[in-house]
């Protein structure tokens, strides 16, 4: 297999290198890629969509249809991970570990056993590492700022690098950080599975729904200038607002899906003990 793999890789590489002979020079401003379609975007974006970040404008408007399906790809990845891994546990796990916070004594409860409710006992993972005070405190301090930054990235995507994807991933990462520094159950209490799954679908629904709204208003699918009559602005500004709406949708889906995939992977679908 190693030899076959090597031969295939070398053959493909050879073919691709052979083709580079006819490529335009690297970073050549007169290459066809820079001359044919893209000048229109650079020169007309401001006029047509009033969004200074050309990448955002092309992403969410000129090629918004691609982006919608890209969000749907993320969504379907979340659903696939759920479908493959999730196991609905009928009864409690084999054994659970509880730690007495004040003394550090650990109690093992077998299935069927019950611990009288008490504030002093905390459920811990089987592979629990002690002395995580610094990590917990720092994470706790950082998470609100991370989330604030995520929201800023989504909202400011028109004027600076960023947008729904990046912001959504940052928001999702903040919850994942919570799940790692505390434990999975804490994160699950913040965003329950059902909420997560519905948010995941809702985000893409906002995107596709905005497109469908344009369609119902008598324009083509995803033609945000149709929103002008709803938002009471001129068509160009309507495009700018439309981009913001779909970016929010993208952000919601990406955030929810990242959390969903992480939860399924880290707990192998049992939603009991995480990383």
């Amino acid at each position, binding site marked *: 297999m190693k030899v076959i793999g090597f031969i295939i890789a070398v053959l493909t590489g050879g*073919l691709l290198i052979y*083709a580079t002979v006819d490529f335009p020079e690297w970073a050549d401003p007169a290459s*066809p890629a820079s001359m044919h379609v893209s000048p229109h975007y650079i020169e007309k974006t401001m006029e047509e969509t009033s969004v200074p970040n050309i990448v955002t404008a092309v992403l969410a408007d000129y*090629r918004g249809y691609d982006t919608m399906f890209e969000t749907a790809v993320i969504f*379907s990845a979340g659903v696939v991970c759920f479908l493959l891994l999730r196991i609905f546990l009928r009864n409690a796990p084999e054994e659970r570990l509880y730690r007495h916070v004040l003394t550090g004594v650990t109690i093992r409860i077998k299935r069927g056993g019950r611990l009288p409710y008490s504030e002093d006992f905390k459920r811990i993972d089987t592979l629990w590492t002690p002395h995580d005070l610094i990590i917990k405190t720092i994470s706790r301090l950082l998470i609100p700022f991370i989330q604030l930054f995520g929201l800023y990235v989504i909202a400011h995507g028109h004027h600076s690098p960023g947008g729904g994807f990046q912001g959504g991933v940052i928001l999702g990462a903040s919850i994942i950080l919570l799940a790692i520094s505390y434990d999975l159950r804490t994160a699950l209490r913040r965003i329950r599975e059902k909420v997560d799954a519905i948010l*995941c679908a809702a985000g893409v629904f906002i995107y596709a729904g905005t497109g469908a709204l344009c369609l119902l208003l008598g324009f*083509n*699918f995803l033609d945000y200038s149709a929103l002008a009559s709803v938002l009471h602005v001129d068509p160009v500004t309507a495009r700018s607002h439309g981009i913001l709406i779909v970016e929010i949708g993208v952000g919601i889906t990406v955030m929810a899906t990242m959390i969903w995939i992480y939860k399924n992977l880290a707990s192998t679908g049992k939603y009991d003990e995480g990383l």
Partner: protein
Amino acid sequence: MSQQYPALIVIVPLLAAFIISAAGWVNKRLCFPVAVAALSVATYSSIGLLLRVLDQGVVLYKLGGWDPPWGIAYYVDHLNGLVLVVVSAVALINLIASKKIIEQEFPEKTGPFYTLYVLMVTGLLGIVVTGDAFNLYVLLEIASLTGYGLLAMGGGRGPLAALNYLYMGTIGACFYLLGIGYLYIVTGSLNMVDIAGILPSLYQSKAVLTAFIICMVGVWLKMAFFPLHAWLPNAYTYAPSASSSLIAPLMTKVMIYVMIRLILTVFTPQFSFTILAVNESIVWLAVIAIVMGAVLALAERNLKKMLTYIIIAEVGYMVGGAWLGNRAGMTGAILHIVNDALMTLCVFLVVGNIVYKIKGYAFDDLKGLFRKMPFTMGAFVVGALSIIGVPPTCGFFSKWYLISGGIAAGHYGFVAALLFSSLVNVVLFFRIIELGYFEPFSDHHGHNHHPEPIDEAPLSMLVPLIIVAAGLVVVGMYTGDIVTRIIDFAIPAGIV
């Protein structure tokens, strides 16, 4: 609303997928009706679109209202229109037929399963309808990702087979993406029609040649063309019946559509057939694919796996037909997309019914099935006759076009391979029919003295199956109309 048909075909199932996903958490019983409604709308719109194309010619739909090549546009011509109807109809019929299986196999996860099912159909429909080369890649990834999930749901070796499919499928999709990148760097455009307009001055460029090779290899990987087929048999065999009867008829056929689209629209027949002059060798590859598929199928003792090898042989038919480079061959390939989707659906639905009732699909499980499940096996016989190519079923007519194309091109190896594979199919299917008709039913509990009572699959599974079986004959009878009214317009005049 008829102006919006091209959008509705994709949008309605897409929106429905999200609704189903959310509904799965609220009330599971809502999922199925929503899915059926969405696919019905998609089927209705695709039929409406096909009629409009027949009436007015190519339909252009600009997404977001942007003119191509800056925005993404749909170009729907006769070829897309036909494949769209087939894809949406097959998906709808299979969905209705598989309801019971899905509820039996995944009682807790019906919601996500329907979501992925509808998303996959969305992806396939999108691949067929789009006129943008990069958009095709994104939709291809949707169809593939959901496909991996659906195939992996079969227990046992399912996940491993799906993981192998994922590796191969990702290489294939990435190769396609790379090929599009090579086209983009020399043309600067992503719109298929626009690329085709720029390419003629670049036909001598090494980059275009490489782009062509890489795109083709990527698409062949996805459709399991012979040397690249290793992932297919296991992935389809160990999948749950509901997913294999969706993916087996559609995925490979849609990829063949993509190949024909690349040949006809993006690279133009002049480049593919005249300048490259590789027809001969690719048809020989197809000959090997057909022969190997037939031989490997002979070696199998398991109905579902045998059918997967037949799919590999059928892929060889269509690739060979498309690359013969003449009108009859191309007609045969396009007609075979329609016919093969229906035939494969028919036999895989039969497998689904058998698995639902008997929980097995090895040859030993099939003994005496004709008495137990007469209608299911009757439909199986029709499907088998069509795969063999017996008139009046539709399989005969596409094979006829393929053979006459082979003779017109003077490629007798291809003709011989087609006849050989038909003969092997006769052996394969009569072996099963014999087992089912003459052998007594093997009862697993050991007391098979009394005659078996009829124990058919439930009506909701049987009716769609019989519709498909009847469809095989009906399509066969209307082949002339399909060819003269649709396929003749789909093939550019350059191909004689």
